[in-house]
């Protein structure tokens, strides 16, 4: 793909992200009706799309890792790294917004009864170890391979952890908390979808932005070496 079309994609993406985010916020506060849950829902409209986006980033990172290992695709390692980096940022946001939601709903800053929160805690630990791994191996094909294999482990870990966390509740928490399930009315669902789209496009914009920056960095370094 030529640099021109790559660079042109970024402003278009950014505009899309901006529009969708503005639309989402407008819908959340002026359109979506309040239900018995109260203002709880408003947090949900951000917290859940952010969580989905984080999963998406990790999945994309895993996909790029697979492309790197399997096809030896050029640049796939960098793209995998940036995707996972972004995934961790959205993951932290999920944990923080989730914690605020837990405080709002149950009065505690952390609850082990929320599967999503526990899963993100585990994933956060896992992907932080990804960065530790990456920074303790000198740059080169081996680092790319190790990172890719680990990223793929992450993708497999997600469903297994979901199962494990769900099973763990049976012997850890005899008291079952009720969850604010997504039984949404049509208008709420629409708002939710727009919110998801906004988060995805935001993530895509940030992903491309970071990639442009890193590639530029690499090429300047090459230029420097060529000149010296």
């Amino acid at each position: 793909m030529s640099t021109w079309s790559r660079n042109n994609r970024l402003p278009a993406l950014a505009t899309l992200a901006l529009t969708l985010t503005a639309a989402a916020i407008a819908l959340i506060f002026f359109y979506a009706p309040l239900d018995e849950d109260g203002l709880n829902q408003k947090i949900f409209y951000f917290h859940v799309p952010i969580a989905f986006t984080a999963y998406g980033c990790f999945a994309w990172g895993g996909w790029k890792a697979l492309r790197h290992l399997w096809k030896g695709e050029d640049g796939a390692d960098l793209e995998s790294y940036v995707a996972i980096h972004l995934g961790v940022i959205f993951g932290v946001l999920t944990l923080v917004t989730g914690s605020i939601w837990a405080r709002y709903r149950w009065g505690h800053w952390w609850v082990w009864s929320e599967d999503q929160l526990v899963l993100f805690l585990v994933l956060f630990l896992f992907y932080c170890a990804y960065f530790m791994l990456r920074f303790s191996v000198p740059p080169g094909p081996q680092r790319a391979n190790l990172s890719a294999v680990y990223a793929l482990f992450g993708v497999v870990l997600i469903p297994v952890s979901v199962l494990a966390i769900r099973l763990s509740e049976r012997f850890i928490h005899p008291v079952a908390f009720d969850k604010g399930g997504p039984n949404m009315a049509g208008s709420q669902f629409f708002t939710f979808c727009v919110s998801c789209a906004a988060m995805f496009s935001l993530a895509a914009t940030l992903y491309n932005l970071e990639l442009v920056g890193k590639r530029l960095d690499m090429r300047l370094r090459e230029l420097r070496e060529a000149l010296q």
Partner: protein
Amino acid sequence: MNYLADVGALARKDLLLELRARDTLPAMLLFVVSALVVFHFVLPAGSSDLAATGLLWVALLFTALLGLSRAFAAEREQGVIDGLVLAPSDRSAIWLGKALSILAFLALAELIALPAFALFFRHIDGTLVGGVALADVGIAAVGTLLAAMAAASRARELLLPLLFLPLAIPIVVGGVGASVADDPARYLGLLGLYDALFAIICWASFEYVVTE
């Protein structure tokens, strides 16, 4: 047939080395018994047997980490990893051979640890032993691959626990669940699923971990 012969030879080599050096296994045995003793002092009065069972799994996990950190130590010290990788056998055979020897070490350590636990804390039953056995397979499979990764890094001993613990969470859930829950079958199933999934991807991806 050749593949299995390679695997067997590699596993046998590790076990023979340990038989002669006698450093890793005694350390693991001593560690697990010491840990169990410490746990006696950790549990406040009136703690249930269930808490003790949970702590057993902590002990097993960290004993495994101790053994795993030594997994590729011999190869690294002798500079032998390149030799192994260049050998005409399939690279995944290295993983399988090493994982089998780790599995043997874990089993031997547990041969002492489980009776000690029964002595110090509570009676153990078949499902607990079954859980431990299945968990061992998962720990050996994933741990061996992660040990190889850590061996390639500068941080080595520091890195292995960081890489291993998040992946060990499903194992712990499965193991503890099998030991304490009313329906251990689900948890044994979780362990089986984990073992199958991760053994396959470890086996398939090991070659990428050791090639440069």
